[in-house]
């Protein structure tokens, strides 16, 4: 990784970056992230290692926490998130399951009803559709429908959203799906601190929590604060983070889109066009509307960014909540959603690139929104 990162300086001309983004989005993102967050002397950690340390710390802290899923043990995880955990905790607590999502998810939920704190890994969230009944009907609802007699402290996790070149069935964002379900909490980390802090919070949470990771972020390094390296570090679920303060427009994003939103904001600031405030949602449910509302009251403009489909999506929900809040009266322009296109994800490189938001699209929409005025 370090040799790759050294090349970052070379990849500064926009069209070279664009070409790299097409040919190798993972690498391109690693470079972009590195450029944006080059800490001088702090510790850096990949999102993958941050997740791994969260699992290791929570399994060390609590014997009732165990990990199960496909290839989490001997294979070290399909994406190496669980690397080394089998060696450290043994097969009792790191359990390779058969390819049977509905079954092992149900089994994990049953064990949570009965005193354990499972971390149920889906190789990707796409495969969890086989098990969505157990997540929604068994995990999310049983506490309520039992009148509080049954508890379900479980964490469901895995990579969510589009990866690179894996086509329609492996490229979908489930934030809106799980975000609509009462009884679930849903988090969507962007960087390494988010990943570690939110996963640890999820494991400690007494409710079922869905952790939507992003495969394209696993290999990217981010600085970790002193506090984030501590085994006591958690990120509170339900609170968004203002990643960059600004005065002219608010951009709300989650997961990988946060990086693009920040880059667009920096680009426009450098060009002297605007000062954008970037909010990293971190939590899809509960949704921190307060932070968004306060920001909109200050900037009077709002753009949402996500990789998921437009209809009934996270951005749609934010629009509706803003409409229903006092922030509506503070808007100077209509809210705009930047989303994944309303299309099953295509395979070909150029078509896939056209399906998801990037820095250029976000910058374009921000400029357009700045030029609009309600009633004008």
């Amino acid at each position, binding site marked *: 990784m370090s040799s790759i990162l050294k090349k970052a300086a070379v990849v500064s001309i926009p069209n070279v970056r664009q070409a790299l983004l097409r040919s190798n989005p993972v690498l391109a993102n690693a470079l972009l992230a590195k450029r944006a967050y080059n800490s001088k002397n702090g510790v850096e950690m990949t999102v993958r290692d941050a997740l791994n340390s969260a699992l290791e710390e929570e399994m060390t802290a609590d014997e009732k926490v165990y990990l199960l899923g496909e290839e989490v043990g001997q294979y070290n995880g399909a994406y190496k998130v669980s690397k080394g955990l089998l060696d450290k905790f043994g097969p*009792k607590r790191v359990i390779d399951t058969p390819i049977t999502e*509905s079954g092992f*998810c149900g*089994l994990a939920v049953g064990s949570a009803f009965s005193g354990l704190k499972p971390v149920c890994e889906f190789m990707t969230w796409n495969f969890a559709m086989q098990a969505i009944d157990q997540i929604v009907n068994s995990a999310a609802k049983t*506490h*309520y*429908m039992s009148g509080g*007699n049954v508890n379900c402290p479980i964490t469901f996790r895995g990579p969510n959203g589009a990866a690179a070149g894996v086509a329609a069935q492996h490229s979908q964002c489930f934030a809106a799906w799980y975000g609509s379900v009462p009884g679930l909490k849903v988090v969507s980390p962007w960087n390494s601190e988010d990943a570690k802090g939110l996963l640890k919070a999820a494991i400690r949470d007494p409710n079922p929590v869905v952790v939507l990771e992003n495969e394209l972020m696993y290999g990217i390094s981010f600085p970790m604060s002193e506090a984030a390296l501590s085994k006591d570090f958690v990120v509170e*679920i339900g609170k968004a983070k203002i990643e960059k303060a600004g005065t002219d427009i608010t951009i709300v994003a989650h997961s990988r889109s946060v990086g693009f939103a920040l880059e667009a904001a920096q680009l426009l600031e450098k060009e002297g066009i605007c000062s954008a405030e970037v909010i990293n949602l971190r939590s899809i449910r509960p949704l921190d509307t307060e932070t968004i509302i306060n920001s909109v009251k200050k900037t009077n403009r709002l753009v949402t960014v996500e990789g998921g489909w437009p209809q009934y999506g996270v951005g749609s929900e934010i629009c509706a909540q803003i409409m229903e809040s006092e922030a509506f009266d503070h808007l100077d322009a209509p809210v705009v959603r930047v989303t994944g296109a309303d299309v099953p994800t295509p395979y070909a490189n150029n078509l896939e690139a056209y399906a998801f938001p990037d820095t250029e699209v976000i910058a374009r929409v921000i400029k357009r929104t700045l030029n609009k005025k309600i009633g004008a």
Partner: protein
Amino acid sequence: MLSSQKINLAKVAAKAFITPLTVRTFASSAARSVNINLHKGSFESYNCDLPSLDVEISKEELVRMYRSMVTMRRMEMASDGLYKAKLIRGFCHLCTGQEAVAVGMETALTAEDKIITAYRCHGFTYMRGGSITSILAELLGRKAGISGGKGGSMHMFTPNFFGGNGIVGAQVPLGAGIAFAQKYLGHKAATFSLYGDGASNQGQVFEAYNMAKLWELPAVFVCENNRYGMGTAANRSSANTSYFKRGDYIPGLKVNGMDVLAVHQAVAYAKEWTVSGKGPLLLEMETYRYGGHSMSDPGTTYRTREEIQHMRSNNDPITGLKQRLLEFNIITEDEMKAIDKAARVEVDQAVEEAKASGEPDLSEFWTQIYQKDSGVPYVRGREPEEFHRY
């Protein structure tokens, strides 16, 4: 003229009740235990030995079985009446006819053992410690309900009973998970996951079998074969109706589920099997529901009235136990009548208590969506100004 199916039913009935039963009481008339010999047709095995046909059981336990079955039937009759009086909403699935399964299981288990089932759950809830009032109040949607009126007929739970699950088959992997937790925590106990002949074809049932065997979980899979999944006869839904053989690599037992003592003996065997570390076991309880699938089903379009009447007359689990108790002087007819009367009084009283309970407070609408004080400050109601802040 009887169809071949009816002839088979007649044979089953004959096996269960015409064969003489032998009971050996101990020398002293005060002896607390009796040995009862089950008919040799009570069990059929698949890749395992048959349980002993010799049941040693206390007189108190036998009387308790009788009382439980009678009370359970009364409770379900009361539910039927309340439903027809339009006091119970939605779905309601009664276990009338299937009482021997829940009762025979309970007498063979301890509080450490766990049970989970689907939506036909009133009888299990009662046997696992739920009071009749709390069950009926739940059906009525009252605050005294066992789930505070939030669950209804299909969602009832006690500390060692995990419902009460409405999605056919989903409870089976959940049960495997409860067994997984028992093994993980080192508890010497087993989990019994019940499902019907209809649910037996769900893919996740086989997924649960596979993991239970792979990981040698103390899981007992219990198919309550009442011959019909809703209105579809077993042979119209299942390519193999020998449900006790469908675990393939998991041994199984077929049990006369209309005989509470056979159920008791099989469940004791299954518990011993699993807790001693032999891994999972399948049980198929051959049983019969007298009523329809749910209250909206008269239960007569896919089977004949004669078939139902035949099962009631010849295979009824309460009548069967009653004959044994009387034949071997375990209690007198008067004592039995007193039990019947007490059950009726108890259920009637519970009906009144349940009816007297108020509807849940509206404040309860907002509770238990998440654990208390676990970081969810606000829940929205139907419109922006209808909401709850914790």
